[in-house]
């Protein structure tokens, strides 16, 4: 190869690698390696929201005459919280720290630690982004999901009030790259045009937890939604225009919809006359102008501002309890794997007479409002409740008698399928001794990033409806058992936990303990020891490596690894 062409090939490559390394090192920051001193942001007095929530659940169980499950042990709780907040299992590094921590209120303090970790903000941002901008790829020119993720992640990390975030998504102006919240608007673009109908439907589903979508074409068959209400909401977005400076509002723009009656009128015209109409004239003859409006409580609308800022204020108005009930149900769903009320975005109307303290969504919703729409507080509250800390073992779960009815009472922690991102996240973390976070080497983080994308592609993305119930499928079982990911993540190399545990554990017992801890966050049972220890006994070198690989394979494929519990 001539030197010139060598420079041509190598130089750009060097630049790319250099930039990548610089960015990666800049993104590494030291956070929250020290345990927080304050035990919790939640006061432990008799009237705290956690106490009220526990009382509400106890009343529910009493009324149904069912004894709830016992409390889960703290390692199980740590696993649960890690999966829910970071999308992965606790690392061996974290487990050692956790087990060495003998101070009181360990779970409360660790909840705070997990919430302060950047991994929480990043993982939760991705979960919530599905609600705000959907799971579709969208139009690349107008929509930048990565920018939206980064914005939402930073906002969650900075504990910005949730109502403020929603207002900025609905009303902000600018470019989708520089003002990433406007991706909420541009995610709905079809063929270059913003889809007002999609925005109206999504606003109600995502922020108010209700479905108005079918009123786009007709009055809702059983709810109170009317077609006119839908159109009014869509018209709130009717002044949006896309220009070189991004999303803007044009006060002179009107919003119109095609009208069935006008279409019928047009059909009565002679064919020749119809054919001669220009596109604009045709639109004039078939469309009627719709004024912006809201489906209820118009008095919450401010008198000043653009139609979008008015709508944003209305959606997040302190008296609009649908707003807080929706996010409470959503966060509950993300934490339990199943929302309090299903489907997550089809909630019944709240009581017009005011908050009902016996209604869980009202109870948590009013606390959420009273504390500045603080997402971390809401999560910490649920994490501190007795119901979140129940075991997933219960007599009814064993016998299956009346299982559906009993599950409705939340007497045990639900067993739900992990999301594909959680599954690959857990496999990646289990195969590494050290915590994979923003302080990890960029190679490690890049590996996680690309592994996740490819695994989800092969496993099957859950789409928008990620809180619906799903059971496993055969291709997924095949992927876990025989796939490239499973092979790579159970390979004993000098860098993987598999290789290192095999070599460094002082004895067979410790080796088996470590395998179980990094994969299942628990130690093996007597039966498991009896089965697995002989496979390690007297094995050295490659034979021992293979035995540890077999154990990891077993644990990755176990229902305990693949299901939240």
């Amino acid at each position, binding site marked *: 190869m001539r030197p010139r062409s060598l420079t041509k090939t190598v130089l750009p490559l060097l630049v790319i690698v250099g930039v990548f390394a610089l960015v990666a090192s800049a993104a590494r920051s030291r956070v929250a390696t020290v345990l927080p001193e304050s035990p919790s942001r939640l006061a432990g007095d008799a009237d705290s929201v956690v106490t009220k929530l526990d009382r509400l659940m106890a009343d529910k169980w009493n009324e149904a005459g069912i004894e709830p499950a016992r409390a889960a042990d703290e390692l199980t709780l740590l696993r649960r919280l890690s999966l829910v907040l970071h999308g992965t299992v606790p690392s061996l590094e974290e487990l050692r720290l956790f087990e060495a921590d003998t101070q009181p209120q360990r779970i409360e303090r660790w909840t705070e630690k997990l919430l302060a970790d950047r991994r929480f903000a990043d993982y939760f941002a991705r979960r919530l982004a599905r609600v705000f901008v959907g799971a579709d790829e969208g*139009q690349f020119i107008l929509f930048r999901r990565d920018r939206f993720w980064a914005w939402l992640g930073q906002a969650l990390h900075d504990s910005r009030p949730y109502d403020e975030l929603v207002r900025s998504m609905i009303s902000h102006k600018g470019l989708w790259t520089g003002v990433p919240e406007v991706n909420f608007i541009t995610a709905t673009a079809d063929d270059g045009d913003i889809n007002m109908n999609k925005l109206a439907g999504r606003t109600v589903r995502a922020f108010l937890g209700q479905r108005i979508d079918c009123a786009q074409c007709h009055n809702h068959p059983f709810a109170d939604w009317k077609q006119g209400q839908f159109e009014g909401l869509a018209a709130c977005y009717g002044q949006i225009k896309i220009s070189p400076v991004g999303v803007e509002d044009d006060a002179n723009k009107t919003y119109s919809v095609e009208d069935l009656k006008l279409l019928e009128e047009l059909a009565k015209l002679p064919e020749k006359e119809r054919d001669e109409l220009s596109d604009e004239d045709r639109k004039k003859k078939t469309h009627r102008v719709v004024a912006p409006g809201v489906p209820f409580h118009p008095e919450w609308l401010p008198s000043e501002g653009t139609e979008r800022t008015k709508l944003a204020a209305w959606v997040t108005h302190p008296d609009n309890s649908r707003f807080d009930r929706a996010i409470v149900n959503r966060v509950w769903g993300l934490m339990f794997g199943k929302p309090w009320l*299903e489907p997550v975005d089809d909630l019944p109307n709240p009581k017009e007479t005011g908050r009902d303290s016996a209604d869980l969504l009202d109870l948590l919703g009013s606390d959420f409002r009273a504390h500045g729409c603080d997402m971390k507080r809401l999560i910490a509250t649920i994490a501190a409740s007795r119901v979140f800390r129940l075991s997933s073992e219960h007599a009814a779960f064993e016998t*299956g008698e009346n299982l559906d009815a009993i599950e409705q009472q939340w007497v045990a922690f639900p067993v739900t399928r992990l999301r594909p991102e959680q599954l690959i996240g857990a496999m990646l973390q289990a195969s590494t001794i050290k915590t994979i976070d923003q302080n990890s080497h960029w190679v490690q983080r890049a590996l996680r990033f690309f592994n996740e994308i490819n695994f989800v592609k092969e496993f099957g993305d859950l789409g928008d409806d990620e809180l*619906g*119930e799903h059971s496993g499928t055969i*291709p997924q079982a095949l992927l876990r058992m*025989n796939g490239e990911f499973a092979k790579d993540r159970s390979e004993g190399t000098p860098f993987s936990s598999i290789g290192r545990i095999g070599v460094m554990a002082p004895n067979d017992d410790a080796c088996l303990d470590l395998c179980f801890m990094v994969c299942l966050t628990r130690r093996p049972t007597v039966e498991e020891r009896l089965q697995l220890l002989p496979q390690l006994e007297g094995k050295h070198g490659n034979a021992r490596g293979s035995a540890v690989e077999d154990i990891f394979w077993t644990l990755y494929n176990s229902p*305990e690894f693949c299901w939240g519990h």
Partner: protein
Amino acid sequence: MRHPSELVGRTDLSALPFNSRPSTLNASRRDFLRFAASSLGLSFAVPGLELRAAERRGHDRPKSFLTVWLGGGASQLETWDPHPGTKIGGDGGVTAIKTTIPDVQIAHLYPHVAEQLHHVSVIRSLVSKEGDHERASYMLKTGYRPEPTLVHPSIGAIVTHELPDDRVEIPQFVSLGDSNFPPRGGFLGDRFDAYRIFNPGDNGQNLRPRVEDDRQARRLKNLDVVSKSFQMHRSAKVERTLHQHTIDAALKMMSSNQLKAFDFKEEPAAVRAAYGESQFGQGCLVARRLLEEGVRSIEVALNGFDSHARNLEAHTNRAKDLDPALAALLKDLAERDLLQSTVVLVIGEFGRTPAINPAGGRDHWPTGFSCLLGGGGLASGQLLGATDPTGEKKQPESPIEVADLYATVLKQLGIDPEKEVITPIGRPMKYSAGKPIERLM
């Protein structure tokens, strides 16, 4: 009142007895297995004396559905609707060639397909309302426009759901090639998602264990013990996850003789050469082998038709793969007497604009685009619809809605397109909102 079998729930367990009929809660384990098995599209029963699908031919053979997906949106002008010598066709560099259907010409890029065209009919007047890749792919795979609160099943999923075959041990709905928007089970459930083979000919992805038999046996024995620990105090709940059932079914699949269908290397060199050495060609060959084993629905995807720039070059390039493979596939199916039982559809998400843009490309065009449809007993050698040779009129003559196309496919496969199922949101939904195209039935 609806029969419970017509109910599809949001959970994959909805087909199982305990959801719709609580009285069967104490059904024996064997019953559970049977239901679980049928819900997974598999049977644990020993195959009866009936001939395996692989041996049956002609009318006697259960019908299958094969889609050749032209991802990105193939231009109708550079494929099946060339308009030679016009401003929109000829000026773009297209000439037309005669085919085995009298008076029907197609683009010169497809000489091999032209010799096999009589096996199918040509539709030149498809219309849809979706001009974005993602939304249009959804529309063209399901027959419905995307909706925010409901995911419609792809036609392949409906066919697999409606026509399960216990004798087929391998996946009954297979997507070959790296389809950008793979066909999904939608509200019918994840288990009706297509099984994806990203690299056709790769001997069936993930279908072989990674270790030797003795280690595999040890791993499975270990798994049994570890699974039991988790089942303790929640065995009914864990049973409902179907985790073990999917593993058992996967293991059964891994040991099936039918797996050889994924391996095209067993084919004679001449056959392989006829399909072409491209990955798409290999995908078509694997598709034929899967059809022989009785696989119900197959999609083979060829991407790269999104020719916003240098349209002719892009289409010439794609035709190099598509022309030999599609021609060989049609010929092979006919010669093996499989065409009578296989509905073949060649389609993409939309067509491309009659006008050439300044970059020499064609943009998205969801009105007046083309597809090929035939086999499975459908009328062949027909020409339906026509587009305006000047390109000025958007609407084609005798427009055919996507829903009508799929109503035709479903009806031909023996499935009532008007059959309603109750979706998870409680809304009844027909399999297809269209009407079968009489001329093709």
